[in-house]
Structures are given as C-alpha cells and as structure tokens.
C-alpha cells in the first residue's frame, strides 16, 4: 500500500524559465498513475507544518523574514532561489505533507509513504533558503520523529549533497544522514571527512562520486560504506530524500543513472526499514520531466516490492576507486577526531 499526500496545486510558486517549476509535480503524478495502484493508493489531506514544527529545524528569525518577504511579493533570494507571494503558504504545506504521511503510516502500521511536494527542501539551512529550497521538508519530518523518541535514517540520493539536512542534524546522535552525490558540484559540501559533530560522530556519511558515475558504483558506495554504519545505527524509521537529477537525461548534473538504477536503490532502501510502515520517500530534485516520471514510477514500484522500470540498470562508470578513498578518509577522520575529543575530555 502506498500512502501519499494530496498533491498541491503549486502554480503560485513559479518563476518563468526556472527549472524548479509546477510541471514537475504533474510528471510525478503521471508516474504515480502509471502504477495503477487502485485501492492500494491512499491519499492523505494536506496540512501546513506549524511554527513549532518548523522551529525544530529552522530559526524563528528566518521564518519571520521569509514569510514577510513572500507577503511583500517575493523575488530572488539568491542567484538560484526565488519566492513569490504564494511561496510561504505552499512551503508550509510542503513541510507539513511529510508529517501527515508519516502520521498515517504510524496509524496503520503498514504501507510505504511518498511525499510529493515542491519546493524541494534538502538545501534549506536553519537560517536561510538555498538551492531552490525554502523549508527543509524531510528534516521537519525527521525532527518530529526524533522528538517522539525515534532513531531516523535520512538517505539522500539526490545528485547534489543535502547540505541543509546535514547542517540541521550535524550534532544529533539520533539522526543518521547518508548522502551519495556528484562531487565536485553544488553546493560544494559533502566530502567524506564531514562525519558529524562531537556529540554525533559517524552520524554523517558522505559518498562523493565523480561525474559519469553509473548505478553499480552508486549502489556499491551506499552498500559498502554506509551499510555497516546503518546496521550499527539500527534506525526505527527510514526517510529517503529522493532526487532524480542523477538521471542521465537531467540537465542539472552529470551522473549517468537510469530509472532502473533508482529501482535498485529503492529496493535497497526498503530493506533498511525495520518494519512495515516505517519508510517514506520525499521528492527532492529532478528536472527532466520524462526522466522524473519514469524514475518516480520505478522507485515506487520497487519500494512496494514489485520493481519495474523502463530502462535497464547501468554499470561501468567511474568512481569505484573513490569508494576505497572514502572508506579510508572516513576512518582516519574518525580516529583523529575521537582522539582529540577524548584528550579534551581527559584534560
């Protein structure tokens, strides 16, 4: 069973010519319809995240300023990110959708969640918008689960590093953030030596890979580097920041993934959920509409246990050597920082 949110009409949040546009959600809806789930599709109503729910991850001054900026008509926040008069209420709905989906999953104790919202969220920092993102949707839900005593894994396969999510949970031992992304690429963060703050060492796992990386390399990076860390962490919930801009047709980056690769990754992610009703997939990037539609379909078919994709998985791309370097860099950073921490505590 797939539990998703009512897809908002996001027409008010648009900037002519900008790739983060309302048509993206139409493509997502088509991908969902391709699955023909019938009674196995449950749609929950939209609700806005409350100020208290947002304050778990964002600073009050930022929320006030963003709201006021939109109320005055909006504009460009930075070179990438825009807001309009309607962006503030739509962003609050996007941040609340994950909460509604997770509530329904918890109530049923069954199913898989799919949060189809825009603007995306994983670049949004505690105190500012960035990279098309206004509010960090996945972080708002992860923080709510964490405040209820859960241990949350956030798995991010958007082609860009989710610097906002990493920053929000940098020092939180109850949230494990794992990201595989193209590097170097925007936002410039996400190197292996970023392993978390002193209170949460080894709770950040960054898996940078070069342009041209194929599905076999991405899967190996997740499974070989992050797999053991995830096993040790033992999450009680799994949230996926599912960006589809790593697809080979996407104009925003240079990974060479196919929809079949996303199906493979989704099958792996589903296997990490500790029980039924403990997995939710959040839409992040993905700007080629056909690739987005097919990748959404492939991902959702896989998390529902019956993977099907219009493209075969890819292999043979670069990056295998980077996996070994990532393992070594993480281990040496962890040794160094742990020794420093212990020395400071002893003195």
């Amino acid at each position: 069973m797939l539990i998703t949110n009512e897809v908002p009409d996001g027409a008010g949040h648009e900037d002519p010519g900008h790739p983060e546009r309302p048509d993206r959600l139409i493509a997502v809806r088509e991908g969902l319809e391709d699955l023909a789930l019938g009674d196995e599709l449950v749609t929950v109503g939209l609700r806005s995240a409350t100020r208290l729910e947002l304050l778990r991850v964002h600073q009050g001054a930022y929320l006030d300023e963003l709201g006021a900026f939109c109320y005055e008509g909006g504009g460009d926040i930075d070179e990438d990110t825009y807001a309009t008069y309607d962006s503030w209420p739509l962003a609050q709905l996007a941040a609340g959708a994950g909460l509604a989906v997770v509530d329904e999953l918890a109530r049923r104790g069954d199913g898989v969640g799919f949060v189809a919202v825009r603007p995306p969220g994983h670049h949004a920092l505690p105190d500012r918008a960035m990279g098309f993102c206004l509010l960090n949707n996945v972080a708002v839900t992860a923080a709510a689960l964490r405040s209820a005593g859960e241990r949350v894994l956030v798995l991010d396969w958007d082609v860009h590093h989710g610097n906002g999510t990493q920053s929000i949970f940098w020092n939180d031992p109850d949230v494990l953030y794992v990201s595989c992304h193209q590097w170097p690429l925007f936002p410039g963060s996400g190197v292996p030596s970023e392993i978390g703050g002193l209170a949460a060492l080894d709770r950040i796992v960054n898996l940078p890979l070069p342009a041209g990386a194929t599905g076999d390399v991405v899967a190996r990076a997740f499974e070989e580097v992050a797999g053991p860390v995830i096993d040790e962490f033992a999450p009680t919930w799994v949230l996926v920041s599912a960006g589809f801009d790593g697809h080979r047709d996407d104009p925003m980056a240079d990974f060479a993934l196919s929809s079949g690769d996303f199906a493979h990754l989704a099958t792996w992610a589903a296997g990490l959920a500790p029980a039924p009703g403990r997995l939710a997939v959040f839409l992040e990037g993905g700007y080629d509409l056909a690739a987005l539609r097919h990748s959404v379909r492939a991902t959702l078919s896989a998390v529902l246990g019956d993977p099907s994709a219009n493209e075969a998985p890819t292999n043979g791309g670069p990056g295998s050597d980077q996996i070994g370097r990532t393992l070594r860099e993480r281990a040496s950073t962890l040794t160094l920082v742990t020794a420093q921490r212990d020395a400071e505590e002893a003195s």
Partner: protein
Amino acid sequence: MSIYPRTIAVGFDGSPDAVSACAWAMATGRRLEAHLVLVHARGLLDRFDRRDPRALFGDVVSELATRHAFNEARLSWHVADGDACSVLLRCAEAPVFADLVVVGSRGRDEHAGMLIGSTSLQLAERSAIPVVIVPSTTSEYHEP
C-alpha cells in the same frame, strides 16, 4: 612574513557592488603588488544555463584593470561549485590561499534589508581571514 596581503580574493558575480569591490581590490592590489583572484561561486542555475563567468564578465574585468592600471598578469579566476559564502570561506585554503577577501555589500540577487541572503554579513561573521566589505554607496569605487 609580510603583514600585507599577497593574495586577495574578490567575490565576483557581475553585480554593481562586485564591480565596485573589484575596483577597490585592484587599486589596493596594485599598491601592494598582490595577486588578485576573482572568485565566482557556480550555483545550480549557472550549470543549468551553461554560464561561464570568464566569458560573461571578461570584458568588464579587463576594462576595470585598464582603468586602475592593474597588471592582468597578476589576475586569475577561481570558479567553484557552491553558494557564494561557502566558496569565499574556502578561499583561505587550497588552491587559492587568499589572505584577504573583498566583497561588495550586496550580491546580484540580494535585497537590501534582507538578512537571509546576505553573503557579506555571513562572511564577516565566519571568515578566518580579514574581510573587506565595499559599500554600495557609489556605483563604482573611485580612487582618491
């Protein structure tokens, strides 16, 4: 070790304030015989639109160098992926190794009175090396 900066990084996004900052850095760099690195943060849309700042702003920079008698042989570009603040903060490290950062008070799409997008304020707060913020009171810096 000289107390004067040998390498000056200048945030350059083509905005009027960036032009003003670049002019100030050229005038100062010329006196100190410093190397100037024009730093451009490549955002998501730069990549989407395949924009190359060297091609976009090359003429503007050459004209500024001529006007301020700055030797273009001492000028280079550093284009890196990321938001402006993060990229400029990393300029203290390899490969730029800047010992001074110069920025305009407002970037291309930053709004007066809006703290959330202010690169210069964030930079001043977090930078490990000195930061000069060139005010936007004039459209371009004029040497005294």
